[in-house]
Structure formats: structure tokens, C-alpha cells
């Protein structure tokens, strides 16, 4: 059923795009495929992690939209940050985000990543997650129900399909801004500056 629906949408898009520009068409097709298959790495940072299992299992079956969970950041397209982030967690989150392969997206759950939520005055919890890493879709609520999460998936899919500017492009463009924000809260210990001289022993060159 989805395939038929999206197929028709692609067709009408091509019609309204006027002159048939093969490159543009290819881009559209690729974007459509990207929107149809999203590999998720679910990072259970806070209490929101409890909403993840029902989202992906039998009750609200996220796989029917091509959203599948994977284990490693290398294979993931989308990272779900569920709940508040302590500084310690933020460091790992940044590390994981930088290990993901482009194009890559982030969905944040709950109000804590947006404005600190109930941890607004905690000395160890960040308030504005989008200062440190770009968020594509922020699902509000404390906690958002699985329906809301799926709503977020659909919104993200629409954005990918329409080729809107994604978070990773922002991150590449103003990397300096993000890095100095990270350095402000994490000290000079942000990635990739865990300096051991192992770290610069290069791998093989093709």
C-alpha cells in the first residue's frame, strides 16, 4: 500500500518539476529510497528509552515503515536520543554521532533535550541539545507516546523525501559553532581529542 502511494507521489513530483533533468530525477529517486528505509540506533539516554520497545515491537510496529533497529552506528542512518543528557552521556553521543555515516539524522524525544525539562537546574544536565549536535525532529512530551514517535518518523521521512536541509549538513557547515559549544560544557575533552599517540598511527592507505 505504501509503495503505491509513494510511487504516485513521485510521479506527480516529476511532472511538476517541469523539464526532465535526469540528475534531479535520480536524486529524487535516491531520496525516496532513503526515506523508505531508515536504520535506527536507539540511544537510551534517559527515561524515554522505555518507549522504544513498544515502538519497535508488535504493538506499534515501526518496521512497517521501513524503520529498523541496528546495533552499530556505522550502519545507522538515524539516532534516537530518548530523554535528558548528562555531560558524560553527551560526550558518548557526540562520539557516536560522528561515527555514523552520512546522510545521518537525529530524533530527540521528550522536553529535556529541548529545554532541560524537569532537570532545568541540574548542574550535570544540558538544557539545549541542539547547541551541541543538530536535531532533525524533536518529539515533545514527557514522555512522548509511541504514536508520537511514529509521527516523528513520518515527518522525518517527508523531509528526506522533499530533500530539505538535514542536520548533518548544518553540522558540517558550522562545525566551529558546535565544537566550541561542546568545548564549553565538556572542557577540552571533546572528540576527537582523546589524545594518545596511538590515535595518529594511521591505517593502511589504498
Amino acid at each position, binding site marked *: 500500500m505504501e509503495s503505491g502511494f509513494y510511487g504516485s507521489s513521485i510521479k506527480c513530483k516529476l511532472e511538476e518539476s517541469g523539464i526532465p533533468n535526469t540528475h534531479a530525477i535520480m536524486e529524487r529517486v535516491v531520496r525516496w529510497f532513503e526515506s523508505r528505509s531508515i536504520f535506527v540506533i536507539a540511544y537510551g539516554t534517559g527515561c524515554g528509552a522505555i518507549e522504544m520497545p513498544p515502538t519497535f515491537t508488535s504493538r506499534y510496529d515501526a518496521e512497517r515503515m521501513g524503520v529498523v533497529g541496528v546495533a552499530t552506528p556505522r550502519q545507522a542512518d538515524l539516532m534516537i536520543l530518548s530523554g535528558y543528557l548528562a555531560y558524560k552521556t553527551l560526550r558518548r553521543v557526540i562520539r557516536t554521532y560522528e561515527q555514523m555515516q552520512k546522510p545521518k539524522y537525529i530524533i530527540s524525544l521528550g522536553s529535556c533535550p529541548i529545554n532541560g525539562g524537569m532537570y532545568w*537546574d541540574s*548542574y550535570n544536565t*544540558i*538544557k*539545549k541539545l541542539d547547541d551541541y549536535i543538530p536535531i532533525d525532529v524533536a518529539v515533545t512530551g514527557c514522555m512522548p507516546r509511541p504514536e508520537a514517535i511514529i509521527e516523528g518518523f513520518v515527518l522525518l521521512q517527508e523531509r528526506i523525501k522533499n530533500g530539505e536541509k538535514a542536520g548533518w549538513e548544518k553540522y558540517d557547515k558550522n562545525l566551529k559553532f558546535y565544537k566550541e559549544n561542546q568545548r*564549553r*560544557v565538556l572542557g577540552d575533552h571533546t572528540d576527537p581529542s582523546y589524545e594518545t599517540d596511538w590515535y595518529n598511527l594511521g591505517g593502511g592507505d589504498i
Partner: protein
Amino acid sequence: MDLAAKLKKLSLTLEQKNNYLYKVVVKSEQLESLLLSFINEFDYITLDSINCRDDLEDGVFTITYCLQNRNRDHIVMIQTSIERENATLPTMHILWPQAEIMEREMHEMFGVNFPGHPSLIDFALEYWNDIPPMRRDFDTLEYVNKMNPFRGQRDDALDAKEEMKKRREAKKAAKLKAEQEAAAKEAQKVKTNTSEEVQR
């Protein structure tokens, strides 16, 4: 109970809080020997928790060890107080292994030092460079505002009060309008009735 008698020998008083909670207050010099005797002689094998309270006014930390013995029927709180600046306590991780992580947390949150502790490394806070956060002279709000300030309001954000007033007025107006319409309907009805009568 015989524990009280045993403590008498050490010239300590065992005061009873309620039927399962007892409390002993010791000087910080006595603490180590007392804890040793508690696990060796009185057989209090379980260390529930090590709590620290920051008495800023007296300039001391009040440390409380909660112990249980084999037949878990009561808790003994051993309370002592140490100086705030360069506070130091003997490490208990040899007597109770679980003490290691409790002391580690206390070191991080209050800056209490434990000589001879195997792992006094970062616990929950990594690379913490301020005064320990659980001390009362640590101003949390200031720190938070410094580190991550509040999110400013959006440029298309509206003033809440104005909005409320507007809405209330709008509601009122709508209500009034509805009443007038109702009245008008009534009037119409009457008119029609009369006109019918006229036809008849």
C-alpha cells in the same frame, strides 16, 4: 540490648530512635576502631550506606554509616563529624567491599578524601573542575546559568498575558453575539405567529 552494654565499655551511648533504628555518635578519631569492632566483635556484616551532610554553619561534614547485622532486624547509625576543609576519612573498602563505590561518590560530590582508596577517579562527573557540587557553598543556579543558559523565547513568541486577555474578550464577545442572535430568533418566531393569525 547487649550492644548498649558493649558500647558502654567504649564509653559510648546507644540512643534509640525507634524500635528498629539506633544511633551512636563518635569522635572522628574513634571512628575507625569502632567500625572495626562493629564488624569483628558485634558482627555487623552489612554496610547499608555512607551518608554525608554538609553543616556549613558548624563548618563540618556529618558522616553517617548505616550498619545491619546478620538477623536484619535493626539498623545502627554511626555518626561522626569532620572538618570541612581538607576533610579526610579512613577508607572502609577492606571491611565492606561496597564501601568503595560509596566513598568514590562521596569524594566526587563533597570532596572528602580517602587515603589508601584504590579508585578515587571520576564517577558520574567527568573532568569536573569546579568545587564539588553537593557542598552547600556551591551555587547550583549560578553554575547552571553559566554553563547552559535558558533557551530564549522564539522571535514569533507572544506575550502570555496579552494573549489571555484577548482570548477572554473574544470569548465574551462570542457569547454576547450568540445571545443577541437567540433574541432575534425569538422575535422572528413571534412575528411569524402573528402573521399567521393575520392570514387566518
